[in-house]
């Protein structure tokens, strides 16, 4: 499946499920670590594991990984200090911080230390997987775009218009932002939490599936009258914008 990311981006990358990432997991709880490693390996990635802070730091510095998953609470050296060391030595490896702490302050602290994303335990594996994808994607696409393309869908960010197969689709501002987010993460699973943070800029737990309703409204405008549906629901995880389901 091809998804053009942006005009002018360096060599449009073929993003398919077998694109391997080299992932480092630093987590002291054996069960969690094994569970994550197994899931990620089954998805086709190469996974390195570390069970304590010192070993984790060592591997992170040596390894040249595509992304690292680091737990905050580790024996011998805590997760945030590993991130700080990494950043201090000039490594830009994207880091997803895992934590049992959940306040906004902790999140801010984690991101401040140099982390790129923050996930609170317990979490669904799909959430982790989606966010890891998003992190590596963000790492690659450097060029700012003025137009986003996904298949027959085209979004002009300057004019704030959306066309599909040449037809104009009228969207309300929030719907536009929602579609933009999906398009920027085209081909990746986007969880409801990610949408709440990215599109609504709030960090909270909705009691009902209020996001689902917004998605279905968007679907009605973007997919209904067209042959190929672009917005897909991924069971147990979230949504994905792509040509295949």
């Amino acid at each position, binding site marked *: 499946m091809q998804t053009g990311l942006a005009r002018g981006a360096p060599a449009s990358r073929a993003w398919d499920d077998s694109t391997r990432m080299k992932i480092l997991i630093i987590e002291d709880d054996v069960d969690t670590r094994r569970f994550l490693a197994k899931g990620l390996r089954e998805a086709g990635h190469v996974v390195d594991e570390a069970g304590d802070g010192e070993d984790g730091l060592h591997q992170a510095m040596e390894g040249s990984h595509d992304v690292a998953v680091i737990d905050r609470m580790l024996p011998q050296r805590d997760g945030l200090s590993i991130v700080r060391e990494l950043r201090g030595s000039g490594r830009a490896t994207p880091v997803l911080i895992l934590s049992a702490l*959940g*306040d*906004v*302050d902790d999140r801010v602290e984690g991101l401040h230390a140099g982390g790129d994303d923050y996930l609170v335990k*317990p979490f*669904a594996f799909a959430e982790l997987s989606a966010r890891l994808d998003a992190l590596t994607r963000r790492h690659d696409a450097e060029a700012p775009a003025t137009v986003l393309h996904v298949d027959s869908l085209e979004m002009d960010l300057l004019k704030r218009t959306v066309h599909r197969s040449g037809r104009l689709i009228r969207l309300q501002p*929030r719907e536009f932002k929602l579609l933009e987010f999906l398009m920027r993460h085209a081909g990746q699973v986007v969880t409801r939490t990610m949408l709440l943070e990215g599109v*609504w800029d*709030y*960090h*909270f*737990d*909705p*009691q*009902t599936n*209020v996001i689902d*309703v*917004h998605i*279905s*409204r968007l679907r009605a405008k973007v997919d209904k009258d067209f042959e190929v549906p672009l917005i897909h629901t991924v*069971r*147990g995880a979230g949504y994905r914008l792509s040509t295949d389901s």
Partner: protein
Amino acid sequence: MWRSVTFRLALIYVLVFGASVTLLLGFIYWSTAGYMEQQTEATIEAEIRGLAERYRLTSLDGLVRSIDDRIERNPFSSTIYLLTNSRYARVAGNLDRWPTAPADADGWLEFTLEQVGGSGERHQARARSFVLAGDFHLLVGRDMFELRATQALIARTLAWGVAITAMLAFAGAVMMSRSTAKRLETINATSRRIMRGDLSQRIPTRGTHDEFDQLAANLNGMLDQIQQLMDGVRHVSDNIAHDLKTPLTRLRNRLEQLAHDRHADREEAELALADADAMLATFNALLRIARIEAGARREAFTTVPLRSVVEDAAELYEALAEERGQSLHVSIEAEPSIQGDRDLLFQAVANLLDNAIKYTPPGGRLDIALTRAQSGAAIRVADCGPGIPDKEHARVLERFVRLEDSRSTPGNGLGLSLVAAVAKLHNAEVRFEEASPGLVVSLVFSDAA
């Protein structure tokens, strides 16, 4: 005993008081005994001048007659007279010879007297010498014995005064420190009993409203608070245990079915997963509420314009309302800002809107309004659902409370608890009013900009 604060305070008090008393009595001594000495010298001085005048007026014979006269008139007085010629040979007076002691610059000298015909005891005397015209030497003085004895008596008495005062002060201080120590001990004893496990104990007060009583009252207040919190915790734990047993049992049943089922049923596994997720969500919500109640997030407060919170929440939930055929109306009558946590406020309003949508029948009307209220602001969410009976108003804000009529609708009973916790953190109130039909929930903030 030395470590006791009360004892040390008492000791300091005794020392300070003792020093003050010593100073005072020293002053008294100086005023009395010292004065007496001064007076004696003044008298001698006056007398000698008087005699010198006599000599000038009546010459030697007159002087001698005066001296003899004075001696005769007061044979037992302690005044000493001596008149000698230039060679210090006695001419008149009651002293046998001129004393050998040297005189100081002013003519004063001190010497020892021996009583004639007396017990042979020696007395100190102080006298003034004067040179008269014709090289006659005149000496007038006093036997200081009596005076010195009196001075010693005064000194002794005052010293005893100091000693007695010190002892009394010490005794008084010990008594006072004991009484203070006793009151402190009551507090300590009660505390020890509480620490051993009896939280119902309270520190006794004396009704005097003094500092100790105030301390006791405050400590009792703290204990009341602690007891209340502990009861609350116990209550919540009971609730949690009770309310989570059902989904946990259901989960167990599903898993058991999966374990026994020959054909692995993906559907069943996913339902089990959903149950587990639901319970995790409940726990997470509980943790959130607990942390909000602990108040730690106040440090991260920023200025939050309530209009954006209300509008964003309305916009998010408007889609859901529309899907159920409901109409959501937003009314912004003011634009206040408060110090608070944006995410928490959003969560609270979202929960209220969620409830409103859930309990309003399809096709119904929902309203959310932002208004000014006295010195603060209010966010009102109105629905046309079944409402909440008056007597349940307080209860619905507690954890896990679900009213009978709504047991079948989805929800874990924590939505309003979270709203209540957020409200408390922001010094706001949650109020319920009947909208007939329906309910109006208000978040009333007491101070807004």
